[in-house]
């Protein structure tokens, strides 16, 4: 029998100085992942290096396979997951795109693959900095997509991702968007939950009737014609529709077991209670935005920020209810969608679509900023906010505005 003191020690969180990538590697260890495949590309490669180190040091026991390309990398974990292994994989930028065929086949097979996408600008030009277009490329395919802001959130969301993806009601792959550099390469103090707590939070992956095994003879992925495809797509749609409920349950358990509160799982609201205008975005841009908001609030400007976490499933009703409270919404895209409505970014048009069904529709101003890893600065945020106040007082700002661009 463990003494009370021993139990306390076992349940105590440890604080460590680690990067977002290391945090995800630590989550892999805590989740006791069975199969991990790797293929180097910056910034994702930092995760594979940390995992390799954990394995080499004997701290972690898993099949660690370095594939010969990203395509095989994602195919291998797909198959491993089909036989019942918990898997982890990841990539960045054009590496993720090289795996694209494997990415498209995964959701239909209902494979709960967890992938880290170290967000990186798509070539060309070859650049390491963050853009979200890599991960966003799978937005229509049945992948769940979540963006994180801090190393702590990266660790927590990785654990949440297995819990949600491996839930029999969902069984969909989940990609975690991690901004290159700002998250992957900065070390900050992170609370590492005790193994016992993780065990309580994260049950073993049980593929049940879908397990590919000689004791459970099944065929996976036969060719199908027009008699079948639509129904298969509808099954995926139904799984995605069930995901929000499972996400809520998982966050509630995370709070109960780890004692860390994220509130609404789908997005974070910052200084929105009395805000007249809000900015809306994903990932690590929240830091300069929050700093700018604190400064502007001191000057009496009622500005808030909504940071979207879960892009898929998109929290439509919640977004409607929240964003209709404001006089104007500025969506900051760290991505682009050339030729799209208003020539705006992906996020801005998602928000416009969601708001179209709302009774009160505030003007949405589209911004593009921070491409290729450029900083979104405090003055940038001030500039965007000034435009939002103009939109709130009736000026029509329907173009998409590139902020921080060298003219």
């Amino acid at each position, binding site marked *: 029998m463990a003494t009370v003191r021993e139990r306390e020690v076992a349940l105590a969180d440890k604080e460590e*100085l680690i*990067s977002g990538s290391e945090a995800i590697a630590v989550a892999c260890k805590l989740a006791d992942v069975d199969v991990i495949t790797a293929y180097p590309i910056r910034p994702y490669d930092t995760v594979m290096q940390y995992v390799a180190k954990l394995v080499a040091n004997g701290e972690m026991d898993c099949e660690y396979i370095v594939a010969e390309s990203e395509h095989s990398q994602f195919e291998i974990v797909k198959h491993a997951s089909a036989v019942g292994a918990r898997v982890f994989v990841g990539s960045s930028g054009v590496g993720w795109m090289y795996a694209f065929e494997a990415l498209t086949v995964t959701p239909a097979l209902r494979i709960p693959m967890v992938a880290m996408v170290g967000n990186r600008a798509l070539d060309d030009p070859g650049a*390491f900095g963050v853009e979200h277009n890599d991960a966003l490329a799978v937005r229509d395919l049945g992948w769940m997509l979540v963006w994180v802001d801090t190393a702590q959130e990266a660790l927590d969301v990785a654990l949440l991702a297995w819990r949600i993806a491996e839930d029999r009601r969902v069984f969909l792959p989940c990609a975690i968007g991690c901004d290159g*550099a700002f998250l992957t390469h*900065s*070390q900050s*103090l992170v609370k590492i939950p005790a193994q016992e707590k993780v065990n309580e939070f994260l049950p073993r992956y049980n593929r049940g009737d879908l397990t590919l095994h000689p004791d459970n003879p099944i065929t996976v992925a036969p060719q199908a014609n027009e008699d079948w495809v639509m129904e298969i797509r509808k099954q995926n749609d139904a799984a995605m529709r069930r995901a929000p409920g499972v996400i809520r349950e998982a966050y509630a358990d995370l709070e109960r077991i780890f004692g860390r509160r994220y509130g609404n799982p789908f997005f974070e609201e910052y200084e929105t209670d009395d805000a007249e205008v809000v900015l809306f975005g994903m990932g690590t841009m929240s830091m300069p935005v929050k700093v700018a908001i*604190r400064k502007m609030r001191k000057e009496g400007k009622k500005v808030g920020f909504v940071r979207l976490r879960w892009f898929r499933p998109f929290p439509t009703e919640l977004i409607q209810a929240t964003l209709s409270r404001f006089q104007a919404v500025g969506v900051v895209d760290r991505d682009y969608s050339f030729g799209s409505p208003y020539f705006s970014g992906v996020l801005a048009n998602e928000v416009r679509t969601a708001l179209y069904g709302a009774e009160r529709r505030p003007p949405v101003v589209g911004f593009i900023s921070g491409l290729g890893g450029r900083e979104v600065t405090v003055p940038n945020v001030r500039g965007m906010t000034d435009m939002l106040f103009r939109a709130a007082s009736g000026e029509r700002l329907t173009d998409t505005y590139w902020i921080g661009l*060298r003219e």
Partner: protein
Amino acid sequence: MDRSYAVEIVYRGIFQKTLAKHISRGLVLAAAKEGKTGISFGRYGDSPERNGIPAKNFAIIAPDEETLEESMSQYEPKRVDVTVSVDDTLCKGVESWAWYGLQPINRLLNPGGKLVVTSMLGFDDLFKMIHTKDVPYELAIVRGIPSFSGLWVYKDDHTDVRILGTIARLVPEMLSLKAVEAAILEEWKDELKMLSARKAYERVESVVVPPGEGNAETPYEFTLPGWKEMPEGVTIQSIQMGGAIVDPETGTLGGYRPAVNPYFKKFSTRTMRPVVDFDTCIKCTLCWLQCPDSCFDVTPDGLYDARMESCCGCGVCEAVCPVDNCVVMVNEAEFTDNASQWEMWKADKAGYKAWVAEKIQHRPERSHGFRLRGLYQEQIKAMAAVGITKSGEEKVGGEDTTEASAGGS
């Protein structure tokens, strides 16, 4: 502490990457011991896997999370309280992989900021390299050769903790020695390392540098073009052809000097440079053929002159030259400009011969590619024996050697 503090660690790519990380981590861990918070990161635009490339790590220390966010809202700090340079040749300025011209080593320092350099040189030698600044700052020397600690088989030489101890002394409001010691014991579990930090704290050598002291050269700079001025299709116009050069002796026009990129020169990657003896050169062309950066100008008299603005100091020319002592790599700190050696030789052949003899006498001292891998105490002894160190001779043979070698056994 009522504000945040920023520290940059400037290092040589790949060789000192782990060392730089240890220093910035150590700073944050020590701050955490005093209830502060912090973040440690590398400048992402750098490509620190390239040999010798100047790269940076940063540590931001703040009293609380909110103040930390405030300082972090700029990814690379525009101002720092402390600059650490773990290789004295970096004092000539750094040109990162991300282009911005040549950045003086002290450019980001706040007024009254601290510049900490690991070096065997004296203050006066460092001032020949370090650019002037229009506000005063403090320069501290941590005695030692450029450390490779943490790289592959290189042993720990305590450079990391000696720098932590030095910073604790210079900026006590950011970090106390107690906190540094506690963090060292926790992170490295090594009492000797803790003692090295303490000794470094006790022995800080520093001077306040008045405005205007240092190298008066204006570093090259340029502004980036706007999107409408840039060629479309991710295209770069190639550099124009070069041309023949005039022989200063005979006035004949001949040879070939290629034109070079005015925006990215690369010489700040260099920790050693080739010294060419034109009297013994047999004009075999090997250096010219093999130089990976096409640095060699072909002179009208058929010789090969390494253009110092472009040379990254890789040492290939020395390796391929078939003549003994005809191309010799020499520590970059021995030089104060990028002048043409061939022009020097043309102007005064006897003087040049003496100059070459003087420069290469300590061969093969190198600031990367040590002969005595991992054995710093041996290296320092060897260097002291041939009189390489221009100052602090007694320190080299005495206390500091013990300190530097404490972890090397």
